[in-house]
């Protein structure tokens, strides 16, 4: 970050690591691996995103054995964050988490329990039930949740290591539909808040950080962009810019103009 003046505030904003369950991450951008057209593009995007925590899903082995995904992620040196994508009940999600722990030797799980096929919105009661069970089973649980501050607090209360509220439905690219709720969630919980789902472009990621989120997760916004590698870099810079802006303290919004140039010494020309 040689291009940033080394004031104490800017150093703190950039260098203060994200802490989840005792682990320190320098990058505040989590990357989803879904939707990349090739493993080569995925590898390039990981490198440019700077992400250290990358999701994977668990699916049936296809004929011909496992692909090279694990090798690519190993080579990138990232930590795996298995998810329970596609699960619709607490029971399925808990079983998928346990299978992921067997497969990837990690206690970390991005918990998703889907309640609606069209919107892929979380099923709140099932999500909370699964979270409680997995925390009790020793998992580091990062739940994908709605932007409901009360549910976020309940998830934190049962021991989730972070909460991951959606900005808008998965893959919709609609950005953050309820900025007010996201800032309420930031106030409601002491665990990290990771804005998950709905990010469409870099400004959405910056906004999430400006609202006080501790990190941003992006998948489709990067993998389905016309140039995924360039978008990965854009997201990285946006997350850093948003965090800096949050720390810098934005000016309040006003209804009318406030001149930035003083009238003092204004010439009388006519």
């Amino acid at each position, binding site marked *: 970050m040689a291009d940033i003046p080394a004031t104490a505030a800017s150093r703190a904003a950039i260098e203060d690591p994200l802490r989840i369950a005792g682990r320190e991450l320098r990058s505040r951008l989590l990357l*989803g691996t879904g939707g990349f057209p090739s493993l080569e593009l995925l590898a390039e995007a990981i490198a440019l995103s700077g992400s250290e925590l990358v999701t994977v*899903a668990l699916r*049936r082995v296809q004929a011909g054995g496992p692909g090279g995904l694990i090798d690519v992620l190993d080579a990138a040196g990232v930590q795996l*964050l298995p998810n329970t*994508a596609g699960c619709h009940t607490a029971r399925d999600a808990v*079983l998928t988490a346990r299978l992921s722990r067997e497969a*990837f030797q990690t206690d970390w799980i991005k918990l998703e329990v889907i309640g609606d096929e069209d919107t892929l919105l979380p099923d709140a009661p099932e999500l909370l039930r699964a979270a409680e069970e997995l925390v009790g089973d020793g998992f580091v649980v990062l739940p994908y949740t709605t932007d409901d501050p009360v549910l976020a607090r309940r998830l934190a209360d049962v021991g989730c290591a972070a909460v991951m509220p959606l900005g808008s439905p998965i893959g919709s690219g609609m950005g953050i539909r309820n900025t007010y709720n996201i800032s309420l969630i930031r106030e409601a919980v002491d665990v990290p808040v990771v804005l998950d789902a709905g990010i469409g472009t870099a400004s959405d990621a910056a906004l999430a950080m400006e609202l006080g989120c501790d990190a941003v997760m992006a998948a489709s916004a990067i993998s389905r962009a016309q140039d995924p590698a360039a978008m990965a870099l854009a997201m990285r810079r946006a997350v850093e810019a948003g965090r800096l802006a949050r720390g810098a303290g934005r000016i309040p919004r006003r209804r009318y103009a406030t001149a930035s140039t003083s009238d003092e010494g204004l010439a009388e020309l006519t």
Partner: protein
Amino acid sequence: MTILLNGRTCELPAPGTPAGALAELGLDPGARGVAVAVDGEVVPRAEWESLALSEGARVEVLTAMQGG
């Protein structure tokens, strides 16, 4: 013996084990990033060679895919 392997009917030489099911899919028991469930229960890697599958067992062999 007949099992249901990843949703497909499959013949395994008796006595069938998860390791035998893996072999059907071209995997060896040392395969990385793989998990096995039998009849909805996780089977730890340590039991892949020893667990005796019952006739008609539902065996799921799972691995990492892009997602999330």
